[in-house]
């Protein structure tokens, strides 16, 4: 037996031991096996990239990879990821602290409103921004008689601003989760020990919420890396835009090469994060849940704090909704007539497929989250990290991979709902793994031991003890997947069953035909339905403050 073999076996043994106390039996091995199987299944479609990239000759491939334009988009993409992540943390963390720890008035209302930008698809949000602030936009038209010209929204700053504003809720929500499970007595203790709030926050709170923040920041970073709509609308050149241009130009080989390069960037970010992340704790914290009384009084800062919240909500919700409303009132592009009326079926289809995706993704996430929460081993870490791969590639890449595999190897699945749901699972798995994992970490293993001593089977102990305890994490993960599925466009457009129209494919249809006014109603429905589920999500947080 080679050294590698023993190493691998030892790793698996350790994984199993760590993951499945107090007893070892077949079902433990089964869970680990299922987790590995799921991870492999989810990554495997992307092997298609290598198949397509192989069509490009090695010399040509090298020249593409080191071409000045490729380096440009590389720098642009990395810059955008860094700036969007930075902006999201800068917005998300203070807002989370304000809504959890401070005596901000109307905290609950702000919490819901500040989470809602997540449900505005960035292609709509960016479009609304350009409509408002772009050349010849509403605001420019409004201000030009007064001789005021507004700076351009296009380019790096515009893309950063729009992406940051619409995805910071990932950081906001994960940081909130950490803060909510943080034992505020520690903070109070630190403050009584003569530390000011700021110093106490830095020394006591920050280390505890770092893993939660990091989880949110990772979701933001890879969203920024894989998003196509916003950079394209804001005229900013990123990997994803170039990949799309290549597909539009039928350069599938080049597109695949660039996608592989994108995956390399993903791996690098994950590696760096794991180096940094080791310093922190191991989850979203785990102590007393709930903060009935705020620990920090805002004092004179109350007004600026309110203004800050109002500004963010104004930019992310009021402006898009106002623009959608204006589209509603505006006439179409001057066609004679077109049979593209809105049907409520589209909303039902959207909700239906999003619920399926949410349930499917949580079921797939559970074993992976369980194993990775119960073990610190490399294998367990790798298992969790591998789920980010599908999230970090642009939707079109995954969709075309599944077109190839589906049509040629699983024709009975091709263009059916199960394959579409599978695509969503591949895309959104890390969103569910993250929140599930953190709730599994919070389950005290002694409880399970007690249940087993009282004669429960491992399965019974899981069902009666673990499951109720991790339910909030599962629900939070499901809600995140639900929301992102509601607004997912590229995979939906390519893989939907023929005749199955959803809100986003309908919005796409009317926008393509130039009927922006017709996009307003489905866009508002999309936001409203998603907002309802957001309220449900926040209720599950256990936030009764």
């Amino acid at each position, binding site marked *: 037996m080679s050294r590698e073999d023993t190493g691998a076996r030892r790793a698996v043994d350790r994984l199993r031991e760590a993951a499945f106390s107090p007893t070892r039996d077949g079902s433990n091995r089964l869970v680990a096996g299922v987790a590995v199987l799921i991870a492999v299944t989810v990554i495997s479609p992307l092997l298609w990239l290598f198949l397509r990239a192989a069509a490009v000759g090695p010399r040509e491939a090298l020249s593409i990879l080191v071409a000045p334009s490729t380096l440009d988009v590389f720098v642009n993409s990395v810059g955008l990821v860094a700036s969007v992540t930075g902006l999201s943390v800068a917005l998300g963390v203070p807002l989370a602290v304000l809504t959890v720890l401070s005596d901000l008035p109307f905290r609950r209302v702000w919490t819901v409103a500040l989470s809602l930008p997540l449900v505005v698809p960035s292609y709509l949000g960016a479009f609304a921004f350009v409509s408002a602030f772009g*050349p010849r936009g509403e605001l420019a038209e409004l201000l030009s008689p007064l001789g005021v010209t507004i700076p351009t929204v296009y380019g790096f700053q515009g893309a950063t601003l729009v992406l940051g504003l619409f995805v910071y809720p990932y950081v906001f929500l994960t940081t909130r989760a950490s803060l909510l499970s943080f034992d505020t007595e520690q903070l109070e203790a630190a403050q009584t020990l003569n530390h000011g709030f700021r110093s106490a926050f830095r020394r006591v709170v920050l280390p505890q919420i770092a893993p939660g923040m990091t989880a949110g920041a990772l979701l933001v970073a890879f969203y920024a890396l894989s998003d196509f709509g916003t950079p394209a609308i804001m005229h900013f050149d990123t990997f994803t835009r170039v990949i799309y241009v290549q597909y539009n130009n039928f350069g599938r080989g080049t597109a695949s090469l660039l996608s592989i390069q994108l995956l390399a960037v993903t791996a690098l970010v994950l590696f760096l994060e794991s180096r940094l992340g080791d310093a922190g704790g191991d989850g979203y914290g785990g102590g007393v849940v709930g903060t009935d009384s705020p620990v920090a009084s805002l004092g004179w800062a109350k007004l600026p704090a309110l203004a800050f919240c109002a500004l963010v909500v104004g930019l992310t919700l009021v402006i898009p909704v106002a623009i959608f409303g204006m589209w509603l009132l505006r006439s179409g592009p001057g*066609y*004679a007539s077109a049979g*593209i009326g809105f049907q409520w079926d589209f909303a039902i289809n959207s909700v239906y497929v999003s619920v399926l995706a949410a349930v499917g993704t949580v079921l797939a996430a559970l074993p992976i989250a369980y194993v990775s929460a119960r073990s610190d081993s490399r294998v367990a870490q790798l298992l969790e990290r591998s789920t980010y791969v599908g999230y970090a590639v642009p939707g079109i890449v995954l969709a075309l991979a599944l077109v190839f595999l589906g*049509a040629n190897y699983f024709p009975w699945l091709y263009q059916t709902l199960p394959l579409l749901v599978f695509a969503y699972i591949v895309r959104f798995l890390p969103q569910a793994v993250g929140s599930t994992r953190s709730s599994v970490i919070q389950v005290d293993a002694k409880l399970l031991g007690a249940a087993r001593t009282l004669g429960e089977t491992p399965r019974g102990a899981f069902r009666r003890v673990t499951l109720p305890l991790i339910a909030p994490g599962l629900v939070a993960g499901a809600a995140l997947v639900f929301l992102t599925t509601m607004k997912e466009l590229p995979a939906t*457009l390519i893989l939907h069953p023929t005749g199955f129209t959803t809100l986003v494919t309908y919005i796409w249809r009317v926008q*393509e*035909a130039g009927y922006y006014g017709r996009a307003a109603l489905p866009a508002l429905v999309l936001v409203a339905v998603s907002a309802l589920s957001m309220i449900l999500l926040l209720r599950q947080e256990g936030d009764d403050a």
Partner: protein
Amino acid sequence: MEDDTSSSLRRRRFLATGAAAAVGALAGCNGLPGGNGGGGSGGSGDGGGTVSLSSFRGSGPLVENRASLSGTRIADLPDLSGELTIYLGGGEGGLYRDLLAMFSQIYPDFTARPREGGTAQLANTIIEEGENTPADVFWAVDAGSLGAVDEAGMTADLSGDVVESVPEEFHPTGRWVGTAGRARSVPYNTNALSAADIPDTVMDFPETEGLVNSMGWGPTYGAFQAFVTAMRLIEGESATREWLQGMLDGGVTEYPDEFLTSNAVADGEINAGFANHYYALRVRSARSNAPLDLAFTSGDAGALINIAGAAVVQGTDQSELAQNFVRHLLTVEAQEFFATRTFAYPMIPGVPPVGGLPTIDELNPPSIDLQELANVEPTLQLMRDVGVL
């Protein structure tokens, strides 16, 4: 056209519902009653058996006083019968769905299963699906996508009688055929300029005194980028760079798209612009007294004509139905539909475009392989270098 000899019951039935649909279209209603082609009053035997052309025709000021049309009519063709999966790429998908619904009304035995997506995306999809593709017909708004599918060997030969009515440059390989065209054009404000003020050559625009500080364009719009791509292919990279720079130096105004460009010309904000021809027609359809007309350059990138077109997908088990369907897209009725509802250029000579435009054979498009227009990346580089994007 009261001379149809067909005794087909279902066509008579369409007449009854077709009249209702025409009223709906005139009243500006959205679309058609979906899939209830069974009308009710069919079978009475005295309907005359004609397919009403007016139900295909759009409405509005541009559509009044249509000349008499000639060409193959739906009644001349065999019935469409069976189920057809149609990959419907891009833009006017909503309107194309209307036409499919009308076909289904005429032929209750015909079921169209349209599958929408971006044109290039659907082309990539068909190529990835290979011989297992569920698609029977690929109907796309862009020649480049048809060309890519064709090059991948995924298109079947169209029979001669399908394509014979269409000018040859719009079915270059015989495996796809144009169904409607869109021409690059120069919308101009008739209060400010006359047709003689617009140069005949697009390359002369930057040097034309009367157009300085009064032109508009939409550089982020795909059709504009295709136009610059054509210029790059015809005139070369450095001439194109100079042209873009010259337009910038001449104070050209940027608009988000070409509908707004055309609208701004009508408003007198600018005197002229670059836009696909149908945008000016849409403006005029909504505001019939708008001081707006179209000029065309000749034989250069400014006179580019791109097409929407259709292909029968290789390996379909519905080959006959698919060919017959493409033939239906080139009937007088369907061509009138494209001409009067989307203001596109009809592909058959017997149906003139609306709004007094020159017919397609009066235009002088550049000789260029439409498929090469897909190579947009160098164009984007160029436009970014100059600072247009």
